[in-house]
């Protein structure tokens, strides 16, 4: 038998009846309908109904635009955070990073205002610098985590403190404020709108679509999932694990930069309270959206819904007075747990 054809057709011995091989082992079809995948969407749907019943103003275009525009910052960061969490990492520093980027960006723009002349150019330079700075911070995280072999939790807990402290120092504990002329030029980036939809919402949509394509339709996205699913398997399968991880942190940093670009024109200032607890909101949006905290599996659409859901809760609470303001956080907590319950996985 010098060269056998395919063994399966040759031997016949393995021709066991279908179903036997798989008997007793749990099957988890990946492309079939699974009601648990739609937990966040169901939760959001219920909230929309509740909100409309409680206050008719809830179901107005203006209110929805307000909510979506607000969600944009956390949502964009959460999309980046999704990549990091799916790859098995975590980044606790994003809120502080946003604050520091905002501060540095404003200082830079104020400084350039005199020398560059055109305020539009100054703002464009500031925006590019913000995204670049975010990417650089992310790369620094990635280097410490992959080359330095330090747990991501620790690295980013460290930078959480560093970023905010540096901002506080830069601002002397007060606020860093964008100069008037620049603020006017910059303001459309937050307040402007196209087809009745505010700019940050458009950017949010663009980032979400790009994120979904990157995660599900590129080798990079597949590697991210493979690493989070089992890093060793990925390493053995010739995946450049360190490089991919590094890029997830840089990607998140760039997302933080984009979010900051949209945030700064809103108030035109950065202060030590800027971005406070954004990291928790972003992580919550990712997890509520159905991404596994252990990594490996996740969906961008889920993250988007998770982020919107979180802002809708506080929007509804602000639009009503039926619950004591002291209990706001408790209501949010209950909704988060309820949604997590809807999308839990079977053991």
């Amino acid at each position: 038998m010098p060269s056998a054809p395919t063994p399966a057709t040759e031997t016949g011995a393995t021709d066991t009846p279908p179903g036997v091989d798989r008997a007793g082992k749990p099957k988890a079809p990946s492309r079939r309908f699974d009601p648990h995948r739609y937990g966040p969407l169901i939760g959001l749907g219920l909230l929309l109904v509740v909100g409309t019943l409680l206050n008719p103003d809830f179901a107005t275009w203006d209110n929805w635009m307000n909510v979506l525009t607000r969600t944009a910052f956390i949502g964009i960061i959460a999309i980046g955070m999704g990549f990091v969490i799916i790859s098995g990492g975590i980044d606790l520093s994003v809120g502080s990073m946003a604050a520091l980027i905002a501060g540095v960006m404003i200082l830079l723009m104020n400084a350039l205002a005199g020398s560059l002349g055109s305020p539009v150019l100054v703002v464009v330079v500031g925006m590019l610098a913000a995204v670049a700075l975010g990417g650089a911070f992310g790369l620094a995280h990635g280097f410490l985590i992959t080359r330095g072999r330090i747990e991501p939790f620790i690295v980013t807990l460290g930078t959480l403190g560093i970023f905010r402290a540096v901002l506080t120092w830069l601002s002397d504990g007060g606020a860093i404020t964008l100069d008037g002329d620049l603020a006017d030029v910059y303001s459309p980036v937050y307040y402007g709108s196209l087809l009745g939809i505010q700019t940050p919402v458009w950017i949010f949509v663009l980032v979400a679509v790009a994120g979904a394509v990157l995660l599900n339709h590129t080798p990079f996205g597949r590697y991210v999932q493979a690493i989070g699913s089992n890093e060793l398997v990925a390493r053995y399968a010739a995946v450049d694990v360190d490089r991919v991880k590094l890029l997830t942190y840089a990607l998140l940093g760039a997302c933080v930069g984009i979010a900051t670009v949209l945030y700064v024109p809103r108030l035109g200032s950065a202060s030590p309270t800027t971005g406070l607890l954004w990291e928790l909101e972003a992580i919550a949006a990712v997890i509520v959206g159905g991404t596994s905290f252990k990594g490996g599996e996740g969906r961008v659409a889920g993250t988007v819904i998770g982020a919107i859901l979180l802002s809708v809760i506080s929007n509804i609470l602000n639009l009503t007075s039926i619950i004591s303001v002291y209990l706001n956080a408790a209501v949010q907590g209950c909704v988060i747990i309820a949604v997590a319950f809807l999308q839990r996985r079977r053991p």
Partner: protein
Amino acid sequence: MTKVATVARRSVLGAGAALLALAGTGGFALAAETVKLGVCIPAATHGFTGGIVWWANEAKKELEKAHPNLKITIKTAGGAPEQANQLQDLVTVTKIDSLVIFPFESAALTQPVAQAKKKGVYVTVVDRGLTDTSAQDAYIAGDNTAFGRIPAEYIAKKYNGKANIVALRGIATTIDNERWNAFTEVMKKHPDIKILDAKYANWNRDDAFKVTQDYLTRFKEIDVVWAADDDMAFGVLKAIEQAKRTDIKEVFGGAGSKTMVKTILDGSNPLIQADVSYSPKFIYDAIKMTAEARLKGAALPATHIIPSSLITKDNAKDFYFPDSPY
């Protein structure tokens, strides 16, 4: 081996000599005239505490220059437990004899402060009173009641006892409650003033922006927003500007921050007409009063309330400190 031992011995000797020198120049002989003052304040996490830190450092700079035998050590803490630890270090390591403390929480710091006092440290408590007043020698505070009362009276008078008001609150604390109660107390006398709602915005610009956006969605007729803090007022103004609402006549902040006072002074925003002072400068006053009293060996009055006053275009220049960050 021998070399290491020599070095070690030499450094021990060195330390001994330094101690002797210290005792000779200051430690013993001039004990009564040397004051080691410890200052415990919250870290600069938002505008107001940023101002506290800046004013405390101003006081240190000026006072140490004026009194060579005064040594001021400033510690900033991120929370009550950290503050308690710093206090302990100040007493045991720095060996302070006087203390000015801005407590994070009244209850949590009462015991640690009482311990310090027991060791003979002179204690001045600032802003938040301790639960056991015997643990303090002096109490210096801004007037939180006036912080709520003054805007209420101002609004009631200006709008002739008839207005729709929405309010923002800070973080659920004693201070916030005192201000809120004083505000509502006055409004009770004016049945035509309606407080439509009050929600927490955590003394934070972003949260104030969001809460105001939702107020604007919910209430079609608003006359005055009581933002209860200048930082929050900033977020409120942005939200109103975005919604292009013209029904709102006035936004009242609080604390008299630099930018707000400047706005009043310049008349640059019609929505900002007045403010109430609650300057972080009181930490400066507290340090100065304590240090100077201690240098003389005198005591402070048991309670000293730094009055809050209404800031309007007429008196705004008295409240404008261009160098302060706040």
